């Protein structure tokens, strides 16, 4: 897999939020404004990149039996650091993100990437994957935040919790439509499959 496809996978073809539908809890909860969405996007990106890189670096050391507790330790430590840093340098953001900042630790995207990719991939590729997946998640989060904030000035529902589900549905539909337009002419096989295995997070989806 080339470096470029590692990045575009996270950003587009395997976008964690729009294709894999991972990390929906924070995605739906803090996407009501662009500001909070951006804040959580950056924090998640930082933790994901840090976790991917450090887990890749220690991968030879971690036996299979203790890999999950070891990964969780790494992710939890990085999340706690991210929380402290946000609290120290942007207190308003810390207050508006509230519980969803520490909850990054339970974002299945991060553990998913650690377990599926970083533990058997060299540091450089893991780093790129973290950047790609993190940016993909973050951009989807910001897009949803922008959509809800803009629509919210017209329809109040967009700001309320149901607006998050409706907005995400619109984004997923838009992603599929655009993807179909872009890809079908040359290569029908690279369409995101409609079978259920598409949402698998471990291993290569073929």
């Amino acid at each position: 897999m080339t470096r470029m496809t590692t990045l575009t996978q996270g950003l587009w073809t395997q976008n964690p939020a729009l294709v894999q539908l991972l990390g929906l809890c924070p995605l739906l909860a803090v996407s009501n404004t662009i500001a909070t969405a951006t804040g959580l996007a950056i924090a998640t990106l930082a933790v994901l990149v840090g976790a991917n890189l450090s887990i890749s670096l220690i991968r030879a050391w971690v036996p299979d039996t203790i890999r999950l507790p070891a990964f969780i330790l790494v992710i939890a430590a990085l999340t706690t650091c991210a929380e402290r840093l946000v609290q120290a340098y942007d207190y308003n953001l810390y207050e508006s993100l509230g519980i969803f900042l520490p909850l990054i630790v339970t974002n299945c995207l991060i553990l998913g990437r650690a377990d599926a990719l970083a533990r058997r991939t060299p540091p450089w590729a893991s780093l790129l994957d973290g950047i790609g997946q993190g940016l993909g998640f973050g951009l989807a989060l910001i897009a949803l935040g922008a959509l809800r904030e803009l629509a919210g000035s017209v329809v109040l529902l967009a700001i309320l919790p149901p607006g998050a589900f409706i907005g995400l549905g619109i984004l997923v539909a838009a992603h599929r439509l655009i993807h179909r337009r872009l890809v079908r002419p040359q290569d029908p096989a690279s369409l995101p499959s409609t079978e259920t295995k598409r949402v698998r997070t471990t291993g290569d989806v073929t």
Partner: protein
Amino acid sequence: MNALKLAIFGFLTSALVGLVYVWTAEPIAKAQQDARDATIRAMLSEVDEIGLGIETSLTDARLLEQLGWSTPIVIRALTRNDAVVGYLVPIRAPSGYSGPIDLILAVTTEPRILAVRVTTHRETPGLGDAIDHRKSDWIQQFAGYALDTHAAEDWIVRPDGGVIDAFTGATITPRAVVNGLRRAMSALTNDPSWPSKLEVR
């Protein structure tokens, strides 16, 4: 062997967290103080012609305990036309859903509640966080409250037999706040000479 490795990971990651904790301790304390000051300013702007007087410290262990603290606190005088008319008393309600809830209470010398605000809490977003004045005006109902003019049930949440509204799905949070307020106000009311225990800093 695996256990040892896991222990090493635990040690290393804790060391990282510890480093960041020490590094960020000062900026976080400052940010919290700034946020608290802003809350107090906004709260006092709703009370007529009130100003901030001198800072004093409270070290009386018994009174501190009833206000929810185990270490000395700073109490600021409230003034009107240069006369002390009340105090800003920080209180801590210990039994919130996710840890203690810190409040700042503005009381007159009688004592009657002028205003009260939550300064720090970790309550559930969307449920318990309605105690936060930025989320709902629930906390504002306590303005004007005093023990001698308000009956006992005015200091108890509805699920416990009182008249104070709790939130659907989150009774523990408002109960903690109301109980904390009641305890603090009883302490101040039952000991009318409490301001004499304040020490100028």
